[in-house]
């Protein structure tokens, strides 16, 4: 297992009247090269959980193991870990501070101590990976880009670390459909072609089902379900109880099956759904 948490518990401001338990004994595993989605209603502890995976938050109890090493106190180890596990925060464009896109993306490699040549190579590669034009954008102010470009630049700023794992908190929050699609495609490419291990945090099951090969469901600080999308999506009633909306396709297939059409409800694309419905119709089933 590449990343593993064992009975991970986190309490914010322990020992004060403001103490709040965000995670209650979460044990999970993420495999190298996988693309997982962590979903759950607001306040379920998703953001707290991912910040443990690169050591930004310290566990109150339990531990996190990355590539066989427990995340501990050692500063050097911690810095190394943060390079390997890249974490893109929610609305990452809010962290912009540099005057140019180049400097913004160069921040991470410079912090790593890369020489100017290596920094440039990393910036170029990162912008390339997210599909932005290095020549056109490098001298622009990151504050004056379009919303989609801003988000991609923020992702590039993390990719410049050349991480092995990319964690994104609400990757498409506040983006329009076209940019959302673009980011989806980017995440897929990074996973399949660049071989990055990906973990996205979302409360959108549609997004989770479309992208991930594994879904982890968090509720009230506990891991309540985990498995491939096909398996998770068959537990519609439970998901609805958690306040998570099923993908529209699943709703339709569930509806058909409840009304007596013997369809397989585990479909993730319009195409699959059409084929599935045609299949049962050919077998003579009607509503």
């Amino acid at each position: 297992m590449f990343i593993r948490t064992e009975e991970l518990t986190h309490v914010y401001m322990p020992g004060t009247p403001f103490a709040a338990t965000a995670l209650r004994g979460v044990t999970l595993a993420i495999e190298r090269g996988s693309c997982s989605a962590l979903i759950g209603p607001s306040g379920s502890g998703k953001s707290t959980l991912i910040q443990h995976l690169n050591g930004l938050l310290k566990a109150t109890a339990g531990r996190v193991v990355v590539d066989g090493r427990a995340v501990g106190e050692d500063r050097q180890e911690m810095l190394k870990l943060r390079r390997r596990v890249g974490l893109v925060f929610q609305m990452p464009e809010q962290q912009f501070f540099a005057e140019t896109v180049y400097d913004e993306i160069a921040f991470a490699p410079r912090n790593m101590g890369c020489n100017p040549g290596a920094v440039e190579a990393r910036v170029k590669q990162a912008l390339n990976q997210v599909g932005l034009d290095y020549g056109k954008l490098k001298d622009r102010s990151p504050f004056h880009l379009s919303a989609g470009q801003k988000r991609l630049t923020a992702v590039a700023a993390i990719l410049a670390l050349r991480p092995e794992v990319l964690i994104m908190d609400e990757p498409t929050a506040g983006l329009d459909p076209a940019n959302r699609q673009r980011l989806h495609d980017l995440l897929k490419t990074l996973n399949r072609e660049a071989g990055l291990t990906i973990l996205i945090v979302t409360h959108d099951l549609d997004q989770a089902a479309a992208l991930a090969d594994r879904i982890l469901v968090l509720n009230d600080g506990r891991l309540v379900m985990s498995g491939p999308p096909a398996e998770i999506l068959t537990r519609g009633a439970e998901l609805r109880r958690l306040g998570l909306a099923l993908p529209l396709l699943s709703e339709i297939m569930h509806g058909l099956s409840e009304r007596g059409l013997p369809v397989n409800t585990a479909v993730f694309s319009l195409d699959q759904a059409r084929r599935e419905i045609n299949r049962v119709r050919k077998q003579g089933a009607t509503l």
Partner: protein
Amino acid sequence: MSRNITLGQYLPGDTFMHRLNPRFKLLSLLFVLTALFWLKTFTGMGILLLLLILLTAAARVPYRYLLRGLRPILYIILFTLVIYLFFTKGGVVLLRVGSVTIEQAGLFEGVFIIARLIALVTASILVTLTTTPLALTHGLEFFLAPFKLIRLPVDEIAMIMMIALRFIPTLMEESQRLMRAQMARGADFETGNIFRKARNLTPLIVPLFVSAFRRADELALAMEARGYRIGARRTRMREETVTWRDWIAVTAPAALLAAVIIYAL
């Protein structure tokens, strides 16, 4: 997080101290502080300290919160005590090392002064711990009201204070989040000398300013959309009520002050 914020150190609770009308609470604090300065005897100081201990217990404030509030003045306390011990002379000589003496008067006065300091801070902390920043501002607004006569925009000043107090925790939270976000990009806020540290803060301060300005803009718009106009008379959704408890809370310290003055305690 908000552990480090001294301004918003309100401790939620539902005791009579929490429920007191903020104006009355501030007024009684004023009486207690005046009494403290008027006190001359250990008897009087003892009564007042006992009263503060009882109030702390009644407000269910853990003692460690008071101790934490006293920490910043620890050196002032020590310094004061040392000065009094060595420089106030009179009474029996308690200790003599060469030509340096510690005499009875020095010990007594030193202890008295630091008791006064501690009581002073404790009383103030007790009020801020049991009053929301918002209520505190309402209280202050009332006491500033006379300045309206000299055309001081008291309502606006109170509004500014209220907004500032309201946004301190928000900005603290935001800066924590930003700090972690930049640390994920390898930023270092801990090592290096002071100049390096200051320069390393740029990735924190620029986004913080950007978001503060954006927030201010949005807030101004939202306030105007709800009819806020400068100079207009505002009413409150929750009028502060005055109960017999408030009258007791203000007359008791007033009586104490009177007793201190009359009986020269």
